[in-house]
């Protein structure tokens, strides 16, 4: 089945400069390259995952200029000049971030696939709301799907992290 696709588009490469986890990068990219593929395949940071392709599951969540975003629904070229934080950038000198610690302590992961996206979303959420109720946490992570845990321990972990981070 041949579709009448538009005339072949020779897209010009776009030069971007981006800071990811504190490291500066410069690349010439096809505009259609998705940010998640840039992070995973070009930068080799495979901690950010792809779970659904239609912006539902949140496994691709990263922090871009201080906001949590679904990197599968952005083009890498949109990140020109931006500061990005991925899961690999959370632990400092091998010392786990309180959210990471809380996930471990509260058994908030089983297969671990949704975990980086959830941790990054929790990171942004707790900056917005450092003192959340359980209901607020559940709403705050409603853009992240988990198929293993039923969310209960994830909510516990985020609550525990919020208390730890206030100290």
């Amino acid at each position, binding site marked *: *089945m041949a*579709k009448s*696709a*538009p005339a*072949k*588009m*020779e*897209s*010009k490469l*776009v030069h971007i400069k981006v800071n990811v986890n504190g490291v500066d990068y410069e690349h010439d990219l*096809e*505009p*259609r390259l*998705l940010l998640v593929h840039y992070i995973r395949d070009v930068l080799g940071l495979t901690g950010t995952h792809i779970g659904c*392709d*239609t*912006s*539902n599951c*949140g496994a691709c*969540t990263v922090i871009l200029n201080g*906001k*949590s*975003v*679904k990197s599968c*629904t*952005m*083009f890498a*070229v*949109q990140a*020109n000049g931006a500061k990005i934080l991925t899961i690999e950038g959370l632990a400092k000198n091998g010392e786990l971030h309180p959210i990471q610690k809380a996930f471990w302590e509260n058994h908030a992961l089983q297969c671990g696939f949704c975990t980086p996206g959830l941790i990054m*979303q929790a990171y*942004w*959420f707790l900056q917005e709301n450092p003192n959340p109720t359980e209901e607020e946490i559940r*709403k*705050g*992570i*409603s*853009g992240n799907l988990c198929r293993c845990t039923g969310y209960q321990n994830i909510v516990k972990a985020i609550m525990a992290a919020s208390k730890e981070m206030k100290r």
Partner: protein
Amino acid sequence: MNIYSFYSFHHRIKFICLDQFIYMSMIPRPFMYFSPTTENEALALLKDYKSDAKILAGGMSLIPLMKLRLVSPNYIIDINKVESLSYIKQEGNKIRIGALTRHHDLEKSDILKKVLPIISETASLVADPQVRNMGTIGGSLSHADPAGDLGSCIIALNGDIVIKSESKERTVKIDNFFVDTFTTSLEPDEMVKEIIVQVPKGRSGGAYLKLERRAGDFAIAAVATQISLDNKGICNYAGIGLTAVGPTNLRAKKAEDFLLGKELNDKIIEEAAEIASNEAKPGDDPLRGSAEYKKAMVKVLTKRALKISLNRAGGG
């Protein structure tokens, strides 16, 4: 392959000459990319490329369509760096919201929470937190998905849309902005600049209620209501916007007219809700509900939303 299954599948895109299930791709076709930093730059590009181009704002509706290859513009004009388009300002009794204002900012805005909380409430129900960080009001309205939440909210507030092209600026009432499913009255070289809504006078209250199968889903039906009462408790403003029950966001005009000049009590509200449900024009959606069910839900949601609005207006 019938048009209908695509309809629900791809967020209700109308498909012409589709004879089979095409669900091929998760990667967009190639395109040229521009990243203007001023409104003028953006509008100049739009003038050059017109229908060959698409404005990229939040991208939360556009990029999924591009990944599915249902939409493949040759040129993308990314306006995310046009900071002058992102604002929420109160000027007298007008609220002016820039097109690039993110749903998240609408949700958290102190100004809106104080004078028009229905906007914050509606914004808080769009998709999910990450999508709300990127999605914009201008993008949402321009996309004109009948299941879009903000459209009904702006209808209930009788908002105005300020539209700009390189050569001119014009203002259009929200009722004249939505033309058909995924179709607005924007010309190919135009884009939304700003949304203007009036701060209600006196006692006013609004609510947005959304019935969805699951958090973050598109609505089965949703209703935005805003009412104002004069100092005798009589309704002197009523705005009712309906989501996901027609080719566009709809105004329940007859229901609104019915409420004006009346004291709102349970019986009046019930009747208004019945009228509103008859103004809904839904189709059958195998995922989210038959037309009959959607209409019935419009009645339930309108009734509930009006009661909450009345309560918030200090009446009832």
